[in-house]
């Protein structure tokens, strides 16, 4: 859009009104198209009507070609302002439709009273506010977790055919469908681990320990952690979004009214499904991680395939594998509870849905890592 300045401006104003000053009166000839598209220019033109003290202002509208509500509003608004400033104003020759009906519906004062709401009304004290919010959040969270755990317990005690079907569906969606991506990333991480460590270990002439390093870290940590993070991203967001949209569509309310417990119908299948599928994914992750390590060990570190297998058998025992695997159901429980909870908390708007989904993923991953740190400490203390 090109804005014209100088002479152009004059021309533009002329398109909409011209002013003739006569003694004791100001004659404003209104012309052209007073429509939405020209509102900015119309505002400027109308503001240019500045009568001398005590003058009568007459708007002559015979030259008016077209007018819509927006244009009529600008004209009407200016006449009202002039009247308020004590000028006698008159509208002449205007076609009945617009200005007439404007006058009888609009309480112009009411319109001007509207003020943009303060975007953020200032909290009295940010620190106090933050603590209060935190406290409230913790309380709400504990309450929600309690409620959900209770319905999970109920559901497990009295499993129905519906529940079994839903759980199988969730295992398929969150587990089976995630296998390819989990396998690929853990395989790659296995390769990365092997490459990074072989360079270092070679300096000590202990290259063969690459196998120990890869197998222990994949089985105890990397396999389950990567699988869990991937699942948090994939299924955590899906859970939150699914439940959030159901909340927005009043589907959750409908279930309640029908006497169906949404916690049992929606949350339990997802929680149980994930508790089953994450350990399965962990198995795949462990295998793929080892395969990645083996590829580097055999292909570039000069360790033979047989040596690799022997080394794995020697350095790791079953407890390493179980340590990794035992974390999977706990991680799954965290991801599924947090994500479904966030979804069900959606109340009103699309923006909220986005925020809750983000929260679901971020908090899932956060809790996974916190729990993992806890496990690492615990297992070390226990000597496992």
């Amino acid at each position, binding site marked *: 859009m090109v804005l014209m300045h100088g002479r152009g401006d004059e021309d533009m104003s002329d398109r909409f009104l011209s002013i003739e000053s006569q003694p004791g009166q100001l004659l404003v000839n209104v012309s052209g198209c007073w429509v939405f598209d020209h509102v900015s220019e119309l505002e400027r033109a109308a503001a240019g009507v500045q009568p001398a003290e005590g003058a009568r202002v007459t708007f002559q509208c015979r030259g008016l070609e077209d007018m819509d509500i927006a244009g009529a*509003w600008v004209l009407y608004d200016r006449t009202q302002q002039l009247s308020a400033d004590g000028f006698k104003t008159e509208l002449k020759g205007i076609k009945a439709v617009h200005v007439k009906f404007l006058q009888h519906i609009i309480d112009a004062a009411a319109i001007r009273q*509207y003020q943009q709401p303060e975007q953020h009304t200032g909290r009295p004290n940010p620190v106090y506010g933050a603590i209060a919010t935190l406290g409230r959040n913790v309380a709400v969270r504990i309450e929600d977790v309690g409620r959900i755990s209770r319905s999970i317990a109920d559901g497990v005690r009295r499993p129905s055919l519906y529940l079994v079907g839903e759980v199988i569906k969730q295992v398929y969606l969150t587990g089976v469908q995630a296998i390819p991506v989990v396998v690929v990333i853990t395989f790659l991480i296995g390769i990365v681990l092997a490459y990074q460590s072989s360079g270092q270990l070679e300096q000590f002439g202990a290259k063969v320990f690459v196998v120990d390093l890869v197998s222990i870290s994949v089985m105890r940590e990397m396999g389950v952690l990567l699988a869990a993070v991937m699942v948090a991203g994939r299924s955590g967001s899906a859970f939150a979004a699914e439940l959030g949209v159901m909340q927005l569509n009043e589907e959750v309310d409908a279930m309640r009214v029908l006497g169906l417990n949404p916690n049992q119908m929606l949350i339990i299948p997802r929680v149980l499904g994930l508790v089953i599928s994450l350990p399965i994914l962990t198995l795949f992750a462990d295998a793929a991680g080892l395969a990645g390590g083996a590829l580097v060990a055999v292909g570039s570190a000069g360790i033979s395939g047989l040596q690799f297998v022997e080394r794995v058998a020697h350095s790791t025992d079953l407890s390493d594998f179980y340590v990794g695997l035992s974390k999977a159901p706990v991680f799954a429980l965290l991801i599924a509870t947090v994500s479904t909870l966030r979804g069900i908390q959606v109340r009103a708007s699309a923006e909220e849905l986005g925020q809750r989904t983000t929260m679901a993923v971020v908090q899932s991953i956060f809790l996974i890592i916190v729990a993992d740190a806890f496990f690492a400490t615990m297992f070390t203390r226990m000597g496992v």
Partner: protein
Amino acid sequence: MNSVITVRKLVNRFGDQLVHDNLDLDVYRDEILGLVGGSGTGKSVLLRSILGLQKPTSGTITVLGRRIEYQQPGPTRCWGVLFQAGALLSDLTVQQNVELPIALHSDMPLETRHELASLKLLMSGLDLSVADKYPAELSGGMRKRVSLARALALEPKILFLDEPTAGLDPIAATEFDELITWLHDNLELTIMMITHDVDSLFGICDRIAVLVDGGVIVGTMNEILKSEHPWIRRYFGVPRALRARQAALGRAHA
């Protein structure tokens, strides 16, 4: 009479189901056209096709001389749509919902924008105390009015209404009908409305378009009532339609 919306040889087919079979329809300037039809006869599909929200199997649609193409920008500035559930943006307040199209289509000063949005809210029969509320905090009827205000924000020439009085109580529905008539008379609007409210059909529609057998039968209420088509005879033969007709006759005589 010139036609502002022209639908020619429209075909919409979903799998085996033929919804529109060479449908022709004209909507004339300054009229209120009521669109009725049984469920599955493609009222919404027709509306969505006209709005370019849905790709018809074949056929041409012209609105104000402009050919409508699927997902291509249509004459946005010239039409306003009242969706059935309101379709307000849930993250924005009432005022922001109405201001949004104005802000996107004009560089007018902020103050004027506020004023115009408030004006449209008032015209839609709302009190300005709702301006800072969010859509989730409003009743269904109020949401419709806000949606109407938003539809009017850009000074449209054509207004599409999808079941405007559905879900409203009789008082609110009657008021909404009056509002539509008032807007139509004052703003030189062409209105196309999907409705099953027989009172609206008898009370405010100039012509009725009935979707039957993949096509459309159009006419004034009197012409439609003379139709021999079995579905139309049943539709206008049910007690509530007869009562609405009586009421409309009563108003005409009064």
